[in-house]
């Protein structure tokens, strides 16, 4: 299995001298093909900044990032745009889709941008949407789709061009519990099936139950990298207060729990 993503001592510092803010401090980690990783942490932990650097939208102050064997350091602005277009797939918290294109056209957009749009490409887009359970929604506009459906179309768009790295920024931000689990499960399955490197930034710890590796960040530093199942599942289940009177436990992923547990880590990003 190849390593799709390598980061080495990646640092991002804003400002200088006394007013310098270290958003990310010497982060080092790898993600392999077919590996699904979650980056978690509270607001201000630097996870979004980290995501931006992985997506070539920000340049690190120090350290190096290598995606699909290519080092990002040497790239100039236009090169980076092209690299992003060809090698990275991205889904966002909101405004994922172009409002005047249908679901299918939104997915095809990625192929058109890469000038790789032909009959086979169109079929691949359709197949991907089908795999995501959206074959009856191909010609719908985004405003005719539910939040979960929009997010799934975005996933298809992020993967149709067979990128080295797939990034998801808070994919469950505006979804209810059932949809959230659905989307992340599907995402995980696709990552595994298509053997891509996938990274999900999320503050919803319940979702980490689907990932292969968990990276925790606090104040810009990586606190923990683990692929230990027990630790990860433990994280996924820590979102309820054991002393609460409502005795909830999500014992397996995907099960609808009755009522939300208390003390959920629901922060909304900036």
């Amino acid at each position, binding site marked *: 299995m190849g390593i799709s993503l390598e980061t080495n001592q990646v640092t991002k510092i804003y400002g200088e001298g006394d007013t310098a803010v270290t958003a990310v401090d010497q982060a080092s980690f790898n993600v392999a093909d077919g590996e699904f990783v979650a980056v978690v942490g509270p607001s201000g932990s630097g996870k979004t900044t980290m995501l*931006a650097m992985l997506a070539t939208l*920000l340049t690190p102050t120090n350290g190096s990032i290598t995606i699909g064997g290519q080092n990002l350091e040497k790239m100039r602005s236009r090169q980076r745009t092209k690299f992003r*277009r060809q090698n990275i797939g991205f889904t*966002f918290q909101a*405004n994922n889709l172009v409002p005047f*294109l249908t679901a299918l056209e939104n997915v095809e957009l*990625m192929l*058109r941008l890469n000038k790789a749009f032909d009959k086979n490409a169109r079929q691949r887009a359709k197949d991907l949407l089908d795999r995501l359970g959206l074959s009856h929604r191909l010609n719908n506009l985004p405003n005719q789709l539910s939040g979960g459906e929009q997010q799934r179309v975005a996933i298809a768009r992020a993967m149709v061009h067979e990128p080295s790295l797939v990034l998801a920024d808070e994919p469950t931000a505006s979804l209810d519990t059932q949809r959230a689990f659905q989307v992340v499960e599907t995402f995980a399955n696709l990552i595994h099936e298509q053997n891509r490197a996938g990274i999900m930034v999320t503050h919803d710890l319940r979702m980490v139950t689907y990932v292969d590796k968990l990276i925790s960040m606090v104040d810009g530093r990586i606190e923990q990298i683990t692929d230990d199942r027990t630790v990860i599942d433990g994280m996924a289940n820590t979102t309820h207060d054991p002393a609460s009177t409502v005795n909830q436990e999500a014992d397996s992923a995907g099960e609808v729990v009755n009522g939300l547990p208390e003390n959920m880590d629901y922060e909304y990003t900036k």
Partner: protein
Amino acid sequence: MSFFLSFKEIWRNRGRYLLFSLVIALITTLVLFIAALAGGLSKANRELIDNIQADLLIYQEEADLLISASRLDNNTLTDLRRIEGIADAGGMGFSTATVVYPAPEGEIDISLIGTEPGRPGNPQILSGGPLIRDRANEAVLDGPLAEKLGVKPGDQITIQTVQGTEKELYNLNVVGLSGSNQYFFQPAIFVPIQTWDEIKPQDTTARRGSRVIFNIAAVQLYDPENYSAMIPAIEGSIDGIQAVDKQTAILALPGYTAQQSTLNTQQAFTLLIGMLVLGGFFQIQTIQKIAQIGMLKAIGTSNGTVAGMTILQIITISIFGVALGVIGTFLIAMGMPPEVPAEFNSNAILGAIAALLFIGPIGGLVSIRIALKVEPLRAIGL
């Protein structure tokens, strides 16, 4: 890529873009009408002078280039014809009269122009023949006037002028028709200058026999290109006169420059307003799309494609809007009464259309800048 995205967006939001086009169409119609009016008024004023087959016009010096104040006589003509470089000179008298017969649509006021048969100043003949005899009741009619009256060469018309305090009628034989020759918003009838001298409106009747006094002289040069050099030569040889080229003479026509500059200012302002309004529309449009543009850039759309999208939309809407406006103008022009002096076939109109095609893109420059400056980091909230 830009094409695909632009047209998809226009199509899915066609109501809104149709509105933009309509605004452009309305501005187009307004600008074209002003341009046409300017052209028509200009023509109605200057056509005759424009058409005089002469290289220079001679005025009495004190007249300050006002035709009606200028007084010259035969001596001037003799002196002119003696100057080296001058091929010929002809006197021209300007006055007004009314055609009373035939009058299928009522009496018509006309400009009564006296010219010397065979000399410069006579109009180009389109049908029939020119004025021949020095002292005859012959007339050459302005073509559109003849059409309106329903006369052709060989027919007779009757005109009326005031002599002293009495209205007098004179019969004239139509010998020929010229092209359109408007002077001072009136069609022209050309008669031999001596006839003109007799029948033109005047204060007293008791000046028959004395020398003919007319207004200006039309001069043809052997070397028309050399007219600017001839001016000092002529003014030096003859006392009390002023020689100018036709363009200067036209600019001196009463009201001409005032009219034209007013209308041109109106045009310019309308174009400016159009630019600002459209600029505003496109700017608001683009601002509403900032999140979308950020997302597109984050997934790897280049700045070039984003700018291309924006400008393509602007250009498409502009072309469509101007086309609509031109069609609308055309339809309205067809239904306009003929008395309105509006000239729709001219370079001025083409120039106006070209300017209109640009007001969208120039107005839209701001929105292109906005689109280019959107940061893809917005898409992830940074």
